[in-house]
């Protein structure tokens, strides 16, 4: 009873402001079974599939407007990388249903080659999480989650959008569930000519066209009341052309195909739960340095993952969790410097949770990896959360996190360095949450000390080699003020955020490039019976692009505004209209790669 109470508590204290019903764990299966426990100590922002439709172009746009992550995009739809709390792209972990999917070659997630549609929820978690989510979870992690409902019968939905620059986004989903069995499948196709014009620079985004296709399928079967077997797969295929600045520029393109499959056997009883999972992830990529010729370079990465997560409640106050994992990572390159490499990784993590009272809880965790060719550090985390008063919650987290050197870092010929140590980070962060009436204020200061940052440096032999070089200090504040009110049929939600991020290279004592010091965001949602309106604002401060803080090379501050309206009839049929970059602002997130000026989209959706 007390156990269930602590778990229900998490939904009421972390329930995002969803207008829908809140579900208890009996009738919803979440593939990432650790997510519920993580939410007990860390705030996780959940973006629903419906909210994702506001920024439907690609995942970069969604993260830029609906999260505190800074997205660096080399032109719309092209190469894109995240920066969470001022950290590097390899220090953000992309987690698909509990499985880390950062590229084993690059060590980072290639954002525009990660599907936007097809997930039931996207979770944004700031701060370290290596004990649970592994390599790369230093600045934060982005969770792409599928869920399966039971006892819901048939449901289907269709989303079709036509937007500027010959952009078309289409998504279809169908599901069926009874009390024992649940099945869901979805497909998405997005394509765009992407030839936007930016008159301020006399620029046309030539050779920027892209398409991507995703197919997701998941099923879950309750063998008995306590045993459940579930499966989730994702197939992804994309082609991106990289934009050239002028007509004579060298035109290149990049193709990638990935497969992810997860099979999970869950055994749940009152005192314990055990989840055994087997997963397979594969990434294939081909780079074409010349459009009319066969690929210039490429690679295939295959990962076989076996994980067992055992969670046991000694009594209503003490809970321990042991996770054992074994992974085989394989990589094969084509003209990329890597021939055939394989790496075995074993790891064990343990977490101990103490629910002192219903207002005070603690967690301590450790993780140790055993990796071939890499000396892996001992990771730990300590968290405490205290609901001090009805209007004040505070939590503190201290952790040590890491990121493996990627295949390119270790095995690339020439330049790979088998002596590389993982990057490690020690961090402390705090979340203060104040609730007064319909207002909620969250203040999260953080501090990270990152050592052994892996950088590729040129050597006397004429090629570049990976070294553990830099020391970086990242600290700052994430703050958010939210307001939510319902008066009869009027529903109103607003929130505003301010993010201060300093990321200092300890040797130069200067701000690292592409880390804007000041950023702000604001969102408004208004709903009245069948009508909905939203607005998103983003303010980005001066962003240096060089390591010497040279202002004349920096990207100037900019303000962006998106707005949309929609009407839903019979709770099934929706017609919507969006305007992005309403103020027609000239802006870019990477030097020389402007992003689109004002653009529009019209969409229709059916939900049944």
């Amino acid at each position, binding site marked *: 009873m007390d156990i269930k109470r602590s778990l229900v508590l998490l939904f009421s204290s972390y329930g995002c402001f969803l207008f829908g019903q809140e579900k208890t764990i009996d009738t919803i299966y979440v593939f990432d079974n650790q997510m519920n426990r993580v939410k007990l100590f860390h705030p996780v922002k959940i973006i629903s599939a419906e909210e994702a439709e506001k920024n439907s172009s690609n995942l970069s746009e969604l993260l830029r407007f609906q999260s505190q992550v800074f997205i660096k995009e080399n032109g719309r739809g092209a190469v894109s990388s995240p920066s969470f709390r001022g950290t590097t792209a390899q220090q953000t972990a992309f987690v698909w249903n509990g499985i880390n999917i950062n590229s084993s070659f690059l060590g980072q997630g290639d954002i525009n080659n990660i599907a936007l549609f097809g997930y039931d929820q996207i979770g944004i978690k700031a701060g370290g999480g290596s004990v649970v989510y592994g390599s790369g979870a230093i600045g934060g992690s982005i969770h792409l989650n599928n869920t399966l409902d039971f006892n819901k019968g048939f449901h289907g939905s269709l989303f079709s959008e036509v937007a500027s620059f010959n952009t078309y986004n289409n998504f279809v989903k169908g599901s069926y569930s009874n009390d024992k069995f649940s099945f869901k499948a979805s497909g998405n196709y997005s394509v765009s000519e992407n030839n936007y014009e930016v008159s301020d620079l006399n620029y046309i985004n030539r050779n920027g066209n892209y398409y991507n296709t995703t197919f997701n399928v998941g099923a879950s079967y309750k063998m008995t009341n306590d045993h459940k077997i579930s499966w989730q797969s994702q197939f992804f295929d994309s082609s991106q052309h990289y934009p050239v*600045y002028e007509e004579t520029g*060298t035109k290149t393109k990049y193709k990638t195909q990935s497969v992810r499959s997860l099979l999970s056997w869950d055994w749940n009883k009152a005192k314990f739960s055990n989840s055994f999972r087997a997963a397979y992830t594969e990434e294939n990529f081909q780079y074409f340095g010349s459009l009319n010729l066969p690929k210039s370079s490429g690679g295939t990465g295959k990962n076989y993952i076996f994980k067992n997560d055992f969670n046991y409640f000694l009594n209503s106050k003490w809970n321990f969790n042991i996770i054992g994992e074994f992974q085989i990572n394989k990589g094969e390159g084509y003209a990329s410097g890597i021939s055939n490499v394989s790496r075995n990784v074993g790891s064990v993590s343990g977490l101990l949770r103490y629910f002192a009272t219903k207002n005070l809880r603690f967690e301590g965790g450790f993780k140790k990896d055993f990796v071939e060719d890499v000396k892996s550090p001992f990771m730990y985390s300590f968290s405490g959360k205290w609901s001090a008063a009805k209007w004040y919650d505070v939590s503190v987290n201290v952790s040590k996190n890491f990121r493996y050197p990627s295949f390119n870092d270790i095995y690339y010929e020439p330049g790979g360095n088998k002596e590389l140590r993982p990057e490690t980070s020690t961090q402390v962060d705090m979340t203060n949450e104040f609730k007064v009436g319909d207002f909620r204020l969250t203040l999260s200061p953080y501090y990270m000390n990152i050592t052994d940052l892996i950088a590729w440096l040129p050597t006397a032999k004429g090629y570049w080699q990976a070294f553990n070089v830099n020391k970086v200090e990242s600290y700052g504040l994430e703050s958010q003020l939210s307001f939510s009110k319902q008066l009869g049929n009027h529903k109103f939600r607003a929130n505003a955020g301010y993010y201060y991020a300093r990321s200092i290279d300890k040797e130069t004592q200067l701000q690292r490039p592409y880390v804007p010091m000041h950023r702000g965001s604001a969102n408004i949602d208004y709903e009245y019976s069948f009508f909905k309106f939203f607005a998103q604002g983003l303010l980005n401060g001066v962003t240096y692009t060089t390591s010497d803080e040279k202002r004349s090379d920096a990207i100037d501050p900019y303000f962006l505004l998106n707005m949309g309206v929609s009407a839903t009839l019979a709770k099934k049929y929706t017609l919507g209209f969006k305007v992005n970059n309403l103020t027609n602002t000239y802006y870019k997130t990477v030097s020389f790669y402007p992003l689109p000026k004002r653009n529009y989209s019209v969409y229709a959706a059916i939900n049944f």
Partner: protein
Amino acid sequence: MKITKLLTVLFAVVLLFNMSSCTSDSAEFEVSPITYQNGYFIANEGNFNSQGAKVTFLTRDLSLKQDDVYGYNNNKEILGDVLQTIGLNGNKAYLVINNSNKIVVVDRYTFKKLAVITDQIDNPRGITFANGFIYVANTNFSAHTQSVTKYKASDYSFVSKINMTEVSDKTVEAGGNVFVQNASSGFGNKITYINTSNDAKTEITVPNGQIGNTVSYKSNVYTISSTAADSYIYKISSTGAMTPVVTLTGIPNATNLQIDNDKIYFSSANKVYTTSLATPTVPTAPLLTAADGGPYFTLYGFNVIDGRIFASDVKQFTAESEMVIYSATTGNKMSSLKTGGLGANGTFLNP
């Protein structure tokens, strides 16, 4: 609207900003000179796949400089992606933009754009001039194709394409003939001699080592090659006959060959050496040791002109480069300046 106006004002303010100092250690900013005659052009490559190519002008007495002379004189136009080298011929300067696949031709006194050559240009790396023609060396590493394309200097019209079998990089002229270095980034050991009377080509292989750099001096071509133990300098006459100049025993991986005032200069890691051209010997000690800004990128740009050594430190392409100027006779540092762009790879005399 407002932002571009602000930029124009900012630009003007930057140029008027006067940073005077008592020592001669830093160049001063001033209102732009009327012409760019009698000075040096510094080529900043810019990062790959970014439009960061920029040219900075420095007066011959090293007292004044102006950043981004192309942008300043061409309506803030962006030059392009990777400025590989600058060729000077007649009253024109030819800016070889490698990843934009074009050669921008400007008036070398006003730096105003005159023309753009794009016909048959495919990742150009070298340029030279002979008998009223322009010869451009192209190497497309992705497609594995390389060529030398020829244009009329009078109207820039395409004349012919000579297919090459090897990487085609730096190109020089000697005695009216064209020599293309078939080596890039320290790998390759051939030089192709093109007889401009009939555009016939002959491949010349250096006997030892991999070629670092090739220059033309007083109608002869000189090249430096090296191994991890020793280095070698060879001379090739204007009709393609090769003779050894000196074997630099004990000096590994030498590159950056330059000849000025009948003296040979070259570098190995961050050490700069010199010896006489007429009676060369193996130098026992370096003339100077440059600041070690990283194992390979130190001395990324290295030129010896007017008895001065122009050595650039590119700060690993993360910030604007610093050009340090040394005396070529004593090796003492004379002055230094920020080059106004990333990856300063060369200094060119504009007389």
